């Protein structure tokens, strides 16, 4: 997935009108006014991207934190990976949690970590609880997306990482941040920590979190319908993407599969708005397919793989790829996720379950916790109309709402990164 995103990010550099003065341009200089384009292209002007050092981030590993046996077909997921870099001198340590399906070392995680490291903090990057490796090796139920459960699992991993780093003497405080679903995760981890107290987080920043996980997932699910020709055409659409990238690779005189190459691909063939929404939907579909499959294997639920079957190291998974790119997240929610958790609590209704995954469920806590802040975008495509108002209403001046940026498109913008750093180094007030 990263490749196409990267592809498009760089590709659009030359496509955007240079003087598209958005109405807020005077106050906020992020250059892409349209939210879907922003989501896909990010910050298309290199000079406007945040500058960070090139410091090498190290990879650490933990043994699995769950009792269960690792499913044979996921044998390579037996350890939990994390990214880290510590300062020589005493400093606060900040945990950075990735978004839906993200690994410990996503581009966003690395950017945030480098910026915060440059500002003098110890940094640790963690995968999303929806990443297949986390589901397999650290997901206590194996069915991710249940915010209180995911928070507990993350908490266990964070404690183990802290143990492994063995650097308590030079850690002066613990901070926490995460983007997208990771933004919701950190809210629930902070809530849990208020009771458990293992870290005593004193600064927590949520970056573009969903308000209602169910609403956001449904929205993203529907975007697949923007694929030209509809869902039946998804295989061709996907194939077309692979073809385009490969074709540019072939035509190019360069051997490297690098950014300038992708730039040329989409310059020749710029995607339309429907195609962009389709692309976001497709990216999400693939992430959903990975998640559902890992979850299905870990729990033997029988979603796409027969409940009494084991996939071995050499079993063909191709039929399940066809099925799980076809089913959406909402199918997963209604047919597996909800029934799975209803087994534990038979009186649970679908509405209650959906409400429980909304930040509204912990609104009181979020409103009172002076150490929690949020950054968001008024035009974020994962929010239903009106949902954005929850954030200024709940957080007051602990919220920064940018006028544009789509979903995370403006995260690498210099001003955004500067505000993240400022939140952790001196606070916004």
């Amino acid at each position, binding site marked *: 997935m990263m490749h196409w995103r990267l592809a498009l990010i760089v590709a659009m550099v030359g496509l955007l009108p240079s003087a598209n003065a958005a109405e807020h341009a005077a106050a906020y200089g992020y250059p892409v006014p349209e939210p879907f384009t922003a989501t896909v292209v990010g910050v298309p002007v290199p000079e406007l991207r945040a500058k960070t050092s090139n410091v090498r981030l190290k990879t650490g590993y933990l043994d699995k934190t769950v009792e269960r046996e690792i499913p044979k*077909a996921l*044998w*390579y*997921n037996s350890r939990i990976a994390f990214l880290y870099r510590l300062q020589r001198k005493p400093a606060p340590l900040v945990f950075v949690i990735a978004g839906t*399906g*993200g*690994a410990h070392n996503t581009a966003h995680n690395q950017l945030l970590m480098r910026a915060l490291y440059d500002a003098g903090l110890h940094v640790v990057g963690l995968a999303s609880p929806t*990443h*297949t*490796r986390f589901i397999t090796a650290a997901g206590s139920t194996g069915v991710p997306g249940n915010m209180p459960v995911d928070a507990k699992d993350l908490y266990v991993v964070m404690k183990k990482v802290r143990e492994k780093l063995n650097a308590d003497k030079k850690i002066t405080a613990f901070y926490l941040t995460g983007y997208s679903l990771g933004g919701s995760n950190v809210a629930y981890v902070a809530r849990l920590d208020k009771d458990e107290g293992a870290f005593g987080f004193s600064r927590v920043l949520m970056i573009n979190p969903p308000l209602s996980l169910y609403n956001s997932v449904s929205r993203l699910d529907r975007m697949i319908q923007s694929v030209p020709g509809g869902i*039946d055409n*998804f*295989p*061709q659409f*996907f*194939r077309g993407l*692979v*073809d385009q990238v*490969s*074709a540019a*690779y*072939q*035509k190019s*005189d360069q*051997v490297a*599969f690098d950014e300038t190459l992708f730039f040329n691909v989409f310059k020749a063939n710029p995607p339309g708005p429907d195609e962009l929404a389709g692309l976001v939907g497709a990216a999400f579909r*693939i992430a959903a*397919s*990975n998640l559902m*499959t*890992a979850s299905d*294997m870990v729990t033997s639920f*029988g*979603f*796409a*793989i*027969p*409940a*009494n*079957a*084991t*996939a*071995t*190291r*050499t*079993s*063909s*998974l*191709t*039929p399940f*790829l*066809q*099925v*799980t*790119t*076809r*089913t959406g997240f909402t*199918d997963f929610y209604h*047919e*597996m996720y909800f029934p799975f958790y209803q087994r534990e609590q038979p009186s649970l209704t679908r509405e209650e379950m959906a409400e429980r995954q909304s930040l509204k469920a912990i609104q009181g806590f979020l409103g009172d916790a002076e150490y929690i802040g949020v950054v968001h975008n008024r035009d974020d495509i994962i929010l239903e109309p009106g949902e954005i108002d929850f954030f200024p209403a709940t957080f007051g001046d602990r919220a920064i709402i940018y006028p544009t940026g789509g979903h995370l498109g403006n995260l690498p913008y210099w001003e955004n990164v500067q505000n993240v750093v400022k939140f952790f180094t001196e606070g916004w007030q």
Partner: protein
Amino acid sequence: MITRHNDSQATARRSHRALLTLLLLALAMLGGCSTKLVYDGEPKEPLFIGERIIDPGVQPLSAASDPWEGLNRRIYNFNSHVDRWVLLPAVRGYRFIFPSPIRTGIRNIFSTFEDVVTFANQLLQFRPVQASQTTLRVATNLTFGLLGTIDAATALEIPKHQEDFGQTLGVWGVGQGPYLVLPIAGPSNLRDAIGEIPDWLLRSYLWDQLLSDDDGYTAERNAARVALEVLDGRDRVAFRYFETGSPYEYELVRLLISTKRELDVEK
């Protein structure tokens, strides 16, 4: 005379034995490579099955022909171990020992040899214009590029092409055949795997010319060359096994590689 040949005969015997061992190993692996699921009792039906939710007319996402999938998956897994425990640590050592300018020099030399292989295949594909560009490249790099250590041709914007015998076969109308994961070398297909042989013979011949001296063939030098070639080859590729975060990595790699090779031939 006799002593000189003894050396190379012994090498040949050793490599034959190694090849035989590999073949036997491959046959042994063929045994336990079922692609089927293992059922505990009568198969139960899952909630979603393809036949019910996908129209039969819909083109499947991953269409490459893969009749040897079980063996391929096993070799893919095997390769991931070789990568993790042998190749990547060796590449780390290589990067530690040789500073970046020297590694670039080594890369450029190998790249020049590849250009010669490309040239031969361009002739076989009747592409005189591209073949002359490649000739110019090689000539430039061997002279101004100080025997191939500096890529002067790229600085002078002489286009670099990449053609191998697998592509030549493709141009002649041979299809890819079944998908094939080669031990250590990685994803390929039957046609391209066979195509490796003439390319490899040509490269070896050229290297023999370069590395032999008046005393005859020098096996040690050639072994060092092959080792460097493998290290440089791995160093060029950023791919890491099982880092995609997808249970479908095998399928995704298969789709990407077969699409790429299709386009390699079309271009």
